[in-house]
């Protein structure tokens, strides 16, 4: 997502927390940040898919990032938020513990991902950034949304379709 990186080589990030760690996502993928609202469960979806919400007349799926990263789940709090991201025409809400700020991180402050960061599979990450004393884990939204589970969703869908067909053919 290079379009928001200016010539000086900065990255503008939305910074949020999840299980006491600080994460950042490229602001260009973020549509908006909303408060928690009623989520309608959808059966037969992977467990990290919490359901769907009504976002001004649109049906938007919401995923729980803690479940996505296999972190310990927690109760929803006053500061819980849904970060609505959009990528390749797909809009998805991500539940996070809280959203703290928007900041510009110079490129030279970022590094490739070390093999293990705080229990989150490094496959979801595109690096780590340093902001003063703080370490910010930079998420790769594409992988957050799609890795494995997307393949799995596709597989499940195929299986279901196959099942449906089988049933129909009997």
């Amino acid at each position, binding site marked *: 997502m290079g379009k928001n990186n200016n010539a000086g080589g900065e990255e503008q990030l939305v910074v949020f927390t999840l299980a006491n760690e600080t994460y950042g996502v490229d602001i260009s993928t973020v549509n908006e940040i909303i408060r928690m609202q009623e989520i309608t469960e959808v*059966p037969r979806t992977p467990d990290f898919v919490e359901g769907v919400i009504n976002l001004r007349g649109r049906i938007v799926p919401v995923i729980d990032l803690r479940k996505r990263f296999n972190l310990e789940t927690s109760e929803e709090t006053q500061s819980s938020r849904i970060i609505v991201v959009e990528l390749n025409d797909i809009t998805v809400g991500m539940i996070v513990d809280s959203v703290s700020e928007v900041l510009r991180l110079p490129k030279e402050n970022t590094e490739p991902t070390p093999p293990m960061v705080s229990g989150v599979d490094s496959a979801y990450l595109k690096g780590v950034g340093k902001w003063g004393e703080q370490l910010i884990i930079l998420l790769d939204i594409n992988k957050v949304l799609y890795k494995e589970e997307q393949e799995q969703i596709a597989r499940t869908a195929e299986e279901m379709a196959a099942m449906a067909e089988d049933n129909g053919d009997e």
Partner: protein
Amino acid sequence: MTGMDMSQYLDLFLEEAEEQLQELDEGLIMLEQDKQNVDLLNRIFRAAHTIKGSSASMGFNKIAELTHWMESVLDRFRDGDLEVTQEVIDILLECLDTLEILKNEITTGEDSCDISGLMDRLKSLREGAPTSEGTEAITDERETVSEIYEAEMDELFFSDTEKNVLRAAVTQGYKSYHIIVDLDPDCLMKSVRAYIVFNNLKDLGEVIKTIPTTEEIEEEKFEQRFELVMVSKESLDKIKGVIRSINEIKEVFIREHPKAETLRSYNLEKPLSKKELDSTKDRLRDVKIEKKRVSQTVRVDVSRLDNLMNLMGELVIERTRLEAVGGNIKSTLGAGDLSDSLDEISVHIARLSGELQEEIMQARMFPIDQVFNRFPRMVRDLSRKSNKEIIFTIDGRETELDRTVIEEIGDPLIHLIRNAIDHGIESPEERRKLGKPEKGTVRLNAFHQENQIVITVEDDGRGMDPDKIKEVSVKKGIITESAAEKIMDQDAMNLIFAPGFSTTQTVSDVSGRGVGMDIVKSHIERINGLIDIDTEIGGGTKFTIRLPLTLAINRALLIKHGGHVFAFPLGNVVEIIEVDMDEVQYMKQHKVALVRGSFLPLYELETLLDLNYENNGAKKLPVVMVGISEKRIGIVVDELVGEQEIVIKSLGKYIGDIAGLAGATIMGDGSVALILDVRGLITTSGVGD
């Protein structure tokens, strides 16, 4: 052929040919019954003529030639020296079939259809035809395709209005010019050049037509060349000079056209007598040269209509919300001026949006005649082939359906009608023995009923015998023998929809029905329809198909289960019953309820959808009986909420398709309710397998 690119007209040509072929088809069938109808004959003639003209100009010579010879035969009908007999109609219908093949060859790019045999038969019919004067004489002389093309090209792309303008202009001493302008290949702004050409010509006369259309020219949808037809009192050279003086014009071809006598042939009626001609001239004199009239219909891209429908959906949601908020305000603040006026506004908006929705739905509607109109021909052919006399009646041709539904409904109806004739109706001898009228009757009917379209196909044939159907089903391994004994007669009928039930031979021998009934079923399921069978042995069979009016906005039954609200599309809800859970029976360890003599399998919604669910302990529970085509199941739910208009929204690509869910909808309070897909639920339940 002109050098211009014809591909842009191909779609138009195919569409038009389709229409005209249909017109011919219908016309010929009617003519067979109504031999002296001159208006009808003229209509048929015009249709053939239109195809001839447009195909010649597109370079589809076989079509042009064939229609040309059809025209000659029709001519002899008109002149009264050939009688309209079944045999001649047969040949003409055969021509239509061949034209259909030729037309399809255009799309597939094949060129294997041989028309020479048919042509010879047509020619022999025409032999000895006296040539009358005027246009027909001209047509007869021109028997090679290239000549036909020359003659027809002139009138090719003219609408009736344009022809009128041309005729009127010529009678008033204007000349008509056909101009072809080639722009310089280096010309950068082609549309601007074209505009300058039109602008300069404006002072000299009136441009009647351009090829391509002015819109396309404005959008630069043309190569180097464009053509135009104008009427003017100026000389050919002057016009040529004016165009020549413009920059970046490579070449100008101009000819006076059409000649006055060719013009007369625009009129496709028989050549006029001197007296008639004079009166026509008088009439034409009254016609002022008018600007091209704006036609009464507009072609709209279907995607735009779909989009309108989506927006309408949004509006319906907001309307529902407004009603809900209004209700809340009233209950918290109590009745008062403010809440009263909000009430009033909300009622008003509800009415307006209702009307708007109606209008938009109307815009997507087609009369079902588009599907029905091909059936008379089919019935005629089938009855001749099977040596059965059939009275075929169609009612409700004008009934309108959403275009998506129209596209799907044709095939199932063909199957049902064909079955009725092939297997339902007995042979004349058999009917005589049974004391029935020798002619069998097949009735096709369409009408609106509440929010549904009902189509019925009915015959007075031999009907279906449930015992024989069971017998065949067991033989084919569709059900076991023990199951067959238990099955109710009405349920037995539904076995004909099972795939594998119908191979023509066995079934037509035994029960007399069932070619591809599973295909019928799958088509109807696809558009959320239901199908029911009524049959009486010896008395006939009636199929009733129920279809939703539209697929985007639906009325739905809202229910609550496990604390969540779900919506059943009302079109799939057959009825609602209450079942005492202590009184359910078991059949093969599965819950069933006895409903009017049929066993209805019962399913809890949570099992069909894999929901987390806690039983609320109630004993008497509502059961929603739902159906898709012939299958019915009962779904046990916690409570009924009510009926409401809903807009189906997709769950989106990220979640994808989920078995049993058709999407989601937004309720009046802003919450999201899942819409159940009855077809998916029934598949999951395994009923009918």
